[in-house]
């Protein structure tokens, strides 16, 4: 994304951008640059559009709180308690000690771990939502993420509510070794229990969803939705290129291609995700149509919709 050739515009504009970023450091900036189209965007506009570039529709990453705010009715919801897990089960050390890396992630994100969950209403339908946080150690899946997922599934069962997971992850938390890999079967068990309870489990795959997360709970949904252009796959592109020693095809592992290959149901713009979830879940949960979507007229007569344009699929 960043290695685009510089054009005359960026060359001319760059010094100004740097000035803007300096302003941003002092908390006074009003502008952000879209990493996809390089356009300068009013921060206010970016926030209003849920971090989607108004110019090119590129979906930037979204933090868990903003995601929750955007989903639940009146931005009201209850956070689930964050599970307590072993802080450093392997006493892992690479160039740094694992607890040190965790502390840095907590400091830079202001959050405790890479997944958070909450319960609340979406169009009056009680739901449990888990959001994975790529900015926290690449959204990597360790004990804390696994336990949060399981707690969210258990909450959904207790409330007889559907579970929605927004996945975003580079894969396993290597610093937790096999305890990280074990989150694949552990989260799968939580999904099986939802399945047995007859409760919907919907996955929204956001950029990027790869590795052990894709190869477990992100691919076991009743319905798979992805955000536009999200990277979705199992193996990393570098590893694949080293193995096959060829260039990767255009659009490889991008949401639209993954949909065309049959792995996800639909690619949905961020602004439409809430209503898409609401529509699907109301049908799966056998709830009546929402008043604002009512197709019957005042007299209760059915308004034919046959003349409406067929859905584009």
């Amino acid at each position, binding site marked *: 994304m960043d290695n685009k050739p510089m054009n005359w515009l960026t060359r001319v504009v760059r010094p100004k951008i740097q000035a803007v970023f300096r302003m941003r450091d002092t908390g006074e900036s009003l502008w952000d640059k879209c990493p996809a189209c390089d356009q300068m965007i009013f921060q206010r506009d970016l926030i209003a559009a849920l971090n989607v570039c108004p110019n090119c529709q590129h979906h930037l990453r979204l933090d868990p709180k903003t995601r929750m705010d955007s989903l639940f009715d009146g931005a009201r919801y209850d956070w689930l308690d964050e599970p307590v897990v072993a802080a450093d089960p392997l006493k892992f050390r*690479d160039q740094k000690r694992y607890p040190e890396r965790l502390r840095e992630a907590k400091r830079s994100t202001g959050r405790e771990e890479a997944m958070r969950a909450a319960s609340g209403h979406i169009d009056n339908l009680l739901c449990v939502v888990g959001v994975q946080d790529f900015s926290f150690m690449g959204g990597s899946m360790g004990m804390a993420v696994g336990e949060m997922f*399981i707690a969210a599934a258990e909450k959904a069962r207790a409330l007889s509510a559907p579970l929605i997971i927004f996945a975003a992850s580079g894969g396993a938390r290597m610093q937790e070794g096999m*305890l990280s890999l074990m989150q694949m079967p552990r989260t799968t068990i939580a999904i099986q229990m939802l399945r047995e309870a007859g409760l919907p489990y919907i996955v929204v795959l956001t950029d990027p969803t790869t590795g052990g997360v894709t190869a*477990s709970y992100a691919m076991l949904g009743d319905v798979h939705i992805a955000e536009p252009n999200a990277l979705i796959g*199992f193996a990393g592109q570098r590893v694949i290129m080293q193995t096959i020693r060829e260039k990767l095809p255009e659009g490889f592992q991008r949401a639209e291609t993954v949909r065309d290959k049959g792995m996800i149901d639909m690619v949905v713009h961020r602004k439409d995700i809430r209503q898409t979830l609401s529509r699907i879940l109301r049908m799966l949960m056998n709830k009546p149509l929402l008043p604002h979507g009512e197709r019957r007229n005042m007299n209760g007569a059915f308004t034919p919709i046959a003349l409406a344009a067929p859905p584009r699929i």
Partner: protein
Amino acid sequence: MRTYLDFEKPVAELEDKIEELRQLAAKDASMTISDEVARLESKADSLLRQNYTRLTPWQKTQVARHPNRPHCLDYISQLVTDFTPLAGDRGFAEDKAIIGGLGRLNDRPIMLIGQEKGADTEGRVRHNFGMARPEGYRKAVRLMDLAEKFKLPVVTLIDTPGAYPGVGAEERGQAEAIARSTDRCLSLQTPLIAVIIGEGMSGGAIALAAGNRVIMLEHAIYSVISPEGCSSILWRSADKAKEAASAMKLTAQELLALGVIDTIIPEPIGGAHREPLQTIQQTGIVLEQALAELDGKSASEIITARREKFLAMGRQGLL
């Protein structure tokens, strides 16, 4: 021709010397070498014993990948009678990285599913070095369905450097295939016993290893990522595999302590590749024991016990 690992060099020298003496004696009948050979043999033996009782995690990685280590097909040919391979995922292809079929383990009918790396160059190509594509995992799911329908236990033999990272594999849903296979292991109404016989790497391994019992050979390794992969990601350098192997806790002994596996099968002195038959027989005994322990259990007992075992992992004794 025996393949020696780098830390086995001193043993290799001793064994070369023994071989040399034997050849000399064969030419010259007047030579008496038995004393010298016995002395060298006992020295080699004690060296091996020293080495193998305290292998480092990186050395174990090398042993687990040893080309002469018994592979899935060796276990099948020694342990399983009436083996009847079953092929294909019924959707796209047959994937020879995963072997599956009906057979009898000490007369008991079982479904055997295992990863095969191949014994020689041609075999390694045919079996894709034990790196399965989605079809392999989908075949495994089909065979688990079949086993469940006829109430047969499933035995899996894990030996893979990982699921195949290719364009086609990705496009045909490698991640989904792995997820569904893990899912099927965990919903299986009959017992599933998994044995890590060599290397069990990442999602490609867990897809077949979510069992009621997870057993490891003494020098096998089981890991979330290869030491090389971990090194290149966390150390940003390819040459810290040794450190990564130690840091990740991928040995049978460490994983038993962490509660990730249930049992360790001891290997002969010098590793499974020195005495393959003995290793395989020992594995057979442990497998029969594990299956016997689960005899007579109901479907719901089997499923519940398996779930509880995985849900308990990492929760106890670590805080």
